[in-house]
């Protein structure tokens, strides 16, 4: 098991490096932004570009890039949006907003999602189940920005309960800030709740009809006992890895929700880097999103093996 995990992680790194190389070459092939002639930083940026190895073969450039990242954790300077500033420090500033908003949303929505899923599975084929399942289906189908608009219109404009966009500043735990985050948190939560409801319901209905549940009932457990001790534990084999994946995903956040509610997070930063275009910033975002995507997959995969002894990961036949 541990061996398998190590293998997976090493493999993940290889994939990561290949992806980075591809993106790196594609980004370096793009025409460079023209530097403003009067700006005092222009000279600095030009020298930086020399140092980054422009005019050298791409592989040499990539080598330099990797060397800088590994030895100094230096991702380069912004050459458009935050002219002359270190991109990693900008990125670091933007991270808390994304993480906090997503964290709130997950903390609320995972328990709600699991609870609704359990209710729907236990009341299968009753109106409770139909209502929950239909709502889940609707929320999963409709793109998140559509209900983000709805939330913004109803709660922020009609009822005027919350401000339209997130409060500026970095005072993350002030009441005004928390209040201004509510619409974004709501918009993010719907999707997560629906996802967990669907997984839990599907898994639990399957577990509830399995033979060992019957055996548990036969040996004298009441239905709640059997459900709690046998069904839920087995159902969580699937749900818990999803929770892990979700927690990694909070770093990535949602580009669209961040744009709609003007959250000053990494999503907005990435969008700006794309529209800038600001290549070094974009490169950092690429690395970030790729790393999160890959590691979430690995974490989910490995956690299956740790959670459920019946699953032998990477075992030889």
């Amino acid at each position, binding site marked *: 098991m541990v061996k398998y995990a190590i293998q997976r992680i090493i493999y993940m790194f290889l994939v990561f490096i290949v*992806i980075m190389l591809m993106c790196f070459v594609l980004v370096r092939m*793009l025409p460079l932004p023209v530097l403003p002639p009067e700006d005092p930083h222009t000279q600095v940026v030009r020298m930086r570009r020399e140092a980054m190895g422009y005019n050298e073969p791409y592989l040499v450039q990539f080598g330099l890039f990797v060397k800088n990242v590994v030895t100094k954790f230096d991702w380069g300077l912004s050459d458009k949006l935050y002219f002359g500033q270190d991109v990693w420090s900008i990125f670091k500033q933007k991270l808390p907003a994304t993480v906090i908003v997503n964290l709130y949303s997950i903390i609320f929505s995972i328990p709600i999602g699991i609870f609704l899923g359990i209710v729907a599975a236990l009341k299968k084929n009753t109106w409770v189940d139909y209502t929950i399942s239909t709502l889940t289906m609707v929320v999963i*189908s409709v793109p998140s920005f559509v209900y983000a608009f709805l939330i913004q219109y109803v709660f922020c404009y009609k009822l005027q309960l919350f401000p339209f966009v997130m409060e500026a500043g970095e005072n993350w735990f002030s009441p005004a800030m928390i209040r201004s985050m509510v619409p974004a948190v709501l918009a993010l939560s719907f999707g997560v709740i629906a996802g967990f409801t669907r997984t839990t319901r599907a898994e639990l209905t399957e577990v509830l009809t399995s033979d060992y549940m019957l055996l548990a009932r036969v040996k004298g457990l009441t239905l709640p006992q059997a459900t709690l001790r046998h069904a839920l534990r087995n159902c969580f084999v699937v749900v818990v890895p999803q929770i892990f994946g979700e927690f990694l995903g909070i770093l990535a956040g949602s580009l669209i929700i961040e744009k709609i509610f003007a959250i000053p997070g990494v999503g907005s930063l990435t969008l700006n880097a794309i529209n800038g275009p600001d290549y070094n910033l974009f490169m950092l975002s690429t690395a970030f999103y790729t790393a999160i995507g890959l590691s979430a997959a690995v974490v989910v995969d490995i956690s299956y093996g740790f959670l459920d002894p019946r699953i032998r990961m990477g075992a030889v036949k």
Partner: protein
Amino acid sequence: MNSKTEFPKIPKEKFAFVSDKDIFLDEAPKTLARGYFGDALIRFKENRSSVVAFWILVFLVAFAFFAPVISPYSLKDQDKIYTSFPAFVPFFAERGMTFLGGARVYDSQNDASMLYWEGIAEETDMDPVIDVIKTYETPAKRRGEDIVRYTYDIRVNAYYALGNVYKVLSYNEFDKIQAWQNETGIQVIYPYVHPRDIRDIRNNPNLWYKVNEKGVAEVDEDGDFIPVYATQKEDEGAPYDSLRIEGDDGSYIYSVKKSGAVQCRVNYYNYYRYQNGHEPFYLFGTSLLGMDMFCAIGMGARFSLIFAAVVALINMTIGIFYGSVQGYYGGAVDMALDRICDILSGVPFIIVATLFQQHLAQKVGVVPSFIFAFVLTGWIGVAALTRKQFYRFKGYEFVLAARTLGASDKRLMFKHILPNAAGTLITSCALVIPAVISSETALSYLGIVDLSSFAGTTLGTLLSQGNASATTAPHTILWPSIFLGLLMISFNLFGNGLRDAFNPATRGTEN
């Protein structure tokens, strides 16, 4: 029966052929043959929600294809003034109905602004005020006396409320409008009012009466407006020989000179009729750019649907081929090809889309490069699905039999194994289309790709324009959202229905 029973010898002649002429064959089954797809269809029909979703889907697709045809407008008709205007149908508006009557709510209107609406109604004969929703009474003090101030929440017909606008027309245009007026009897040009007569207010062409310095009408003893139309013949921009308004004894002038052209006050509603040959007719209102929403949603959705279908088709083709090779040959080939999938699927989609836009959009156009972006990673899902199906079926006896009979690899793959995977693949296609539409919409909403130069407009563009004016004109975001939401829901329901229908494991489990 005990097999050890010994039979006494039976003489040969006791045996007789049952028949020595007829050949007995198995009787042909009298039941109807039910094929794989026929069976799936029957089971699909039993799933009521999917059938409903299917019909909604048909309706939405029909809407996307026919709305631009039915609509009197095209996307090129972008009215400069009717932007983000509410839904308007003349039939309802003339009867003063709020539904489809161009109604917009104006709150806290005081008596002065009510007088302003009245002024428009009196001059243009089109009363903008539809109804008063609520009246507020606030006690106040003026010069030591207790008075009651009234404020109103009213519904106003936004099209009528626009009233008159200043327009600079060429001499030729001016004459043409006069000719049109004579022909139809509809007053477009209204007598000019000098700003100096309305206390130098230059930005309000709806004042035609005596006003105080705040722009509020000063009425005479009977409560009537006092007209201050211009009568100075020497200011007249061009001769006017057409309809004159009521109460004009021929002395009013209808235009003034303005650097080689004439400036006049035109009633925008009637000017619109003159320009377009019909009254405004906006079933869903207008967009931020003054397009007819009905037409724009249709066009946007049509683009999205065709785009998604093309992407799905390409993805299916590549994915099926790739997955077949992977699944059929297995082993080292499978390993090698799988690594390619791993790498490609690790790149976040937004990064792919951006890089393709930056590199290819200028060379091959926005839409092809966007298609490439979707195809680059989109086929992986289909390939994985095909691969799985191949692994499942390639060990079956019928494959072995075909191979023994000398079928080639190609024939085995595409004639014998692939048809078994058809159901699963069709289902995945039905679920790929909404996913593509949703990411396409998201990316055009975010402005990462700008498809509007090619497609005229897209749902994502409409949504992002609507987002800007959501508070003042909720319809601009409501209709695209509803359309997109319904489309997604019905596509997914339909896809789920297909999946259940094609899945042999669920056969007979219903009820």
